[in-house]
């Protein structure tokens, strides 16, 4: 095809754009979930385990039922159960939420590997794709504009969550619990119930994000599927200053960094391959170093959050 060759060096930004959308989708969901949980004053490091459980259960149910939509819902449901476990354990006195998160991360990973063994081989129905590149006859452009339905949902969810947090009664309750437990108690709200709901909802989103990994990109269940997205989302929320819209932008940035290695590979640059694969981690680290400070309190941080104290 003559058009394919004429793309030339544009192949890299095109692949980067398409890749950014693909890679960022799980980040959007996990970071929105983490953002909601942290707004209620608790940090859930277990979303890595939730993500893997979501990927496994979504794939399994999609395979068993033949419906990828049902898979996504199952992943969300499993994620919210993990959220509830986290919330329940943390509501006990003297139990540390960061440690419970690490525990749930190891437990979720182990459980997903255990239950997911039978689903490594079979192929499950994948999520539908919206072809926004129908107008073009250049394959690279078409490939880049194949947008997944879950990305659209995630992109719409971010402003919706911002509106929910800032403009609704529910949002106010969640923020109150996150800012001052005393104020929330005085208003008559149960801290643990509100946090449990926020953590469960956050888990639901993280589970959905996990199902994207197995049902869309890379698009199959394997044990090496997740590579720290769940924990990077925590860094991403800090970077996004606990604002859902910023989470969306930050996720896109992370997605672009994650798409760098495959994009360069597509044009034949293979040297320092592993360093490009590690690009998102290095970028996260650099961003964290730049945005953190020893003396300043961070803008927008919920006051009850353990990382801020």
């Amino acid at each position, binding site marked *: 095809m003559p058009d394919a060759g004429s793309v030339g060096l544009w192949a890299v930004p095109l692949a980067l754009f398409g890749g950014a959308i693909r890679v960022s989708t799980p980040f959007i969901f996990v970071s929105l979930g983490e953002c909601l949980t942290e707004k209620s004053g608790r940090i859930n490091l277990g979303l890595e385990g939730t993500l893997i459980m979501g990927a496994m259960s979504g794939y399994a149910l999609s395979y068993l039922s033949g419906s990828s939509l049902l898979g996504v819902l199952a992943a969300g449901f499993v994620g919210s159960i993990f959220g509830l476990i986290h919330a329940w354990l943390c509501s*006990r006195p003297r139990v540390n939420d960061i440690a419970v998160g*690490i525990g749930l991360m190891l437990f979720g990973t182990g459980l997903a590997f255990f239950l997911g063994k039978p689903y490594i081989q079979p192929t499950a129905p994948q999520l539908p794709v919206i072809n926004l590149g129908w107008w073009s006859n250049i394959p690279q452009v078409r490939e880049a504009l194949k947008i997944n339905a879950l990305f659209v949902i995630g992109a719409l969810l971010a402003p919706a969550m911002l509106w929910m947090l800032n403009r609704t009664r529910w949002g106010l309750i969640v923020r109150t619990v996150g800012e001052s437990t005393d104020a929330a108690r005085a208003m008559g709200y149960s801290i643990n119930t509100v946090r449990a709901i926020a953590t469960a909802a956050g888990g639901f989103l993280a589970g959905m994000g996990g199902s994207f990994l197995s049902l869309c990109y890379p698009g199959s269940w394997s044990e090496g599927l997740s590579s720290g997205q769940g924990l*990077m989302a*925590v860094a991403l929320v800090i970077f996004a200053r606990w604002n859902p819209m910023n989470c969306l932008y930050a996720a896109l940035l992370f997605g672009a960094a994650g798409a760098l290695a495959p994009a360069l590979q597509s044009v034949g640059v293979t040297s320092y391959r592993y360093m490009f694969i590690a690009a998102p981690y290095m970028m996260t680290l650099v961003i*964290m170093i730049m945005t953190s400070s020893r003396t300043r309190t961070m803008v927008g941080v919920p006051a009850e959050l353990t990382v801020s104290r």
Partner: protein
Amino acid sequence: MNTQVATEETDVPLTTDLTTSPPKPRVWPRLPLHYLEPIAISLSALVASLILFSLFILVVAHANPIESMQLMYRGSFGTAFSWQNTLIRAAPLMLTGLCTALPLRLGMVIIGGEGALVLGALAAAGTAHLMPNSSSFAVLVAMMLAGSLTGACWIALAGSLKYYRGVNETICSLLLNYIAIAILNQMVEGPMHDPESLNTPSTWYIGDANMLGKMFGTDVHWGLGLGLIICIVTYLLMDHTVIGFAARIAGGNIRAARVAGLSVGKITVFICALAGAAAGLAGTVEVAAIQGRANANITAPGYGYTGILVAFIARANPLAVIPVSILIGGIGASGGLLQRRQHLPDATVLVLQGILFLMILTFETFYGRFKIFQRKEPTHA
């Protein structure tokens, strides 16, 4: 103590003094029951997780949990062979366990043991390659120095970022893990690639003469002895020296530590470097005693991540890291038997470890709830 009680009783009005009986003599006056509290609670958590795990085996895997328990015992502590297998796995766990346990004393949750282990292994293998004509003793010492120094720098980086920039150490150390693994992969395929390693890209073989020896005619290598010594030394350091005391103050109340004139930053970086050195040494031992080369197989057993579990179960006590590593090593060693006999997936071990981790954290809530374990202190009015 007695004088204190006496002065307090003189403050009590005379009327009540006449009606209340004199304090009863303690039944067990000097039994240090408060030392037993962590042991009792941890053992209860272990029993609870074994019960939950049995239910899991029964309901989810449709296997006989009693048979699983018997197999696990046989695979971990039942025979001399399984004991050796357990101890071989326990050796690196002691060192990676320390990597999380020591910073935990300062209130820092470092989960970067895997990265320090990987880079320690890489540095050790590289060092051996640079010393082709040296005696094996010199090579081993140099490997250990290089491995622990690399690991020390890696975790000290996380520690100093935490202290001087306020970067969250948990996420930072996790990111460093992925970066370390990328460095390993890049090195074994690029500058440090041995063309003779075909299936798994690896560094050069360190040579038979330079492999770490076995202990006392068993199959257990000297890494275990090293792990034991380092656990004991760090225990003495943390609990019986001024540095350890300063570290505990800094972990308990950072403002009090500053007021007391302690340089919290130096202590933080030092403890993190020590932690990283332990994990780097674990990587060195894996290269020098098991693999003979540095390659991606170093990360396969997940010693770095299991070390986090060890540290939390041991409640950050370097001495407790020893038995906990042996226990967790035993669980790992029994995985193969469960796979062969009961056709359970290899992740069964991970499930049990996860349950154990969560139970230990849940049982944290029981500390201070049982009167029998409380230190009997004079009550202040």
